[in-house]
């Protein structure tokens, strides 16, 4: 698999430093499952974090700290011999990525004909909104922009917008300055994992009416 669209290097650095909210973190982690290049960059950034940690002036631990920790040492965990099976499937034959195992998804809910969604983290979570979007083949999504940064990772199928074609594993990063109108590729459903930090802003007046219903 060839990944053509990657997060910005500084997005990966912020991931390694732990700055992203949970929704964005899950999307970046999902891209990392697909992308060895970005895994290497994150590893480099984590190594920088480790080197900086090593050089920090030590802080004084509380009195009795070590004794308390020693008293709490339990068994050393054994790594499982095999990875556990996927917890759930995105579609038949499409197991959820490892990064989504912790979620217990609800059912797909229709947003408009040909487009449905599963909300994984609600906008009110304080951790960004995280959802799966399923777009029927050859479907045009209404023009929209974003009031904040949006991260999209394609899990299956493909879509095209002004920035190119996005296939499985690709990550699209957009900000408030960009309006886009994705069109899903023919052949199969396009399923995307999306994190937004603020509601979408739809361009057309009809689409704007949908805004309260969509609520993403």
């Amino acid at each position, binding site marked *: 698999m060839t990944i053509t669209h990657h997060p910005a*290097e*500084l997005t990966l*650095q*912020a991931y390694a*430093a*732990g*700055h992203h909210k*949970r929704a964005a*973190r*899950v999307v970046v*982690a999902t891209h990392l499952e697909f992308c060895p290049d970005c895994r290497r*960059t994150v*590893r*480099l*950034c*984590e*190594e*920088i*974090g*480790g*080197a*900086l*940690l*090593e*050089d*920090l*002036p*030590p*802080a*004084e*631990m*509380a009195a009795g*700290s*070590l004794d*308390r*920790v*020693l008293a*709490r*040492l*339990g*068994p*050393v*965990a*054994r*790594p*499982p011999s095999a*990875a556990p099976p996927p917890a759930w499937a995105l579609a038949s034959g499409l197991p959820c990525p*490892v*990064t989504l*195992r*912790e979620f217990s998804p609800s059912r797909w809910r229709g947003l408009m004909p040909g487009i449905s969604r599963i909300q994984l983290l609600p906008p009110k*979570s*304080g*951790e960004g909104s995280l959802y799966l979007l399923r777009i029927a083949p050859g479907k045009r999504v209404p023009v929209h922009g974003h009031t904040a940064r949006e991260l999209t990772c394609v899990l299956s199928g493909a879509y095209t917008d002004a920035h190119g074609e996005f296939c499985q594993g690709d990550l699209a990063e957009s900000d408030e300055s960009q309006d886009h109108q994705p069109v899903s590729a023919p052949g199969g459903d396009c399923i995307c994992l999306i994190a937004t930090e603020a509601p979408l802003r739809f361009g057309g007046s009809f689409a704007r009416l949908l805004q309260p219903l969509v609520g993403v």
Partner: protein
Amino acid sequence: MNGLAPLLSYSPPGIVAPRPVLRKLALAREALRWSGLSPSSPAQPERPGAEFAGFIRAIATVQDRAAFVALYGHFAPRVKSYLLRLGAGTVLAEDLAQEALLSVWAKAAYFDPDKASVSTWIFTIARNLHIDARRRARAPARAAAELANLPDAAVPEAADMVLFAAQQQERLRAALVHLPANQAEVVRLSFFQDKPHAEIERELGIPLGTVKSRLRLAIAQLRSLLDAPK
């Protein structure tokens, strides 16, 4: 019966370590440094990065408490320092530093010296604990399940791989020292303050574009260093 069981299951930790003598020396050095008795503690000697990996293996294989004490002495105060820099209060920083070292013990068998040096592994543990704590603060009612620290398949490591990860870390630390001051400052802030890049802009009074380009330059420089032929 009860008295025999521990004897039967006990094997001296030195047997499994690759270089028992060096390891014991390092243990003693760490224990001294930690206790504040070492006369040379301010003048940091060479970092026993590969030794740390040996300590973790000793925990994983024989639950070596002395190795744990050495790791604790070195890393707990640094992890606490890191958490304080991220804005955690003294109590939280202490608690999370203790939790981080408890994780080092409990997850020792998951440590993969091919993937990361010990300080990097502990950095990611501390970072993830802080992420969890921050999330609990934002949404106290939510369950604290976390995706990070996904268990990796346990792969036996050759000794030269251990050395490699440790050497890489040494090179990186040396390179950080030689970064231009303005780049080094941005790199430090980008890791040790719980702030998006835009807030570093405010803090340093330089434009966001400059923050980003300095950070990118620094990462590129460090990357080229690690990619260079060994």
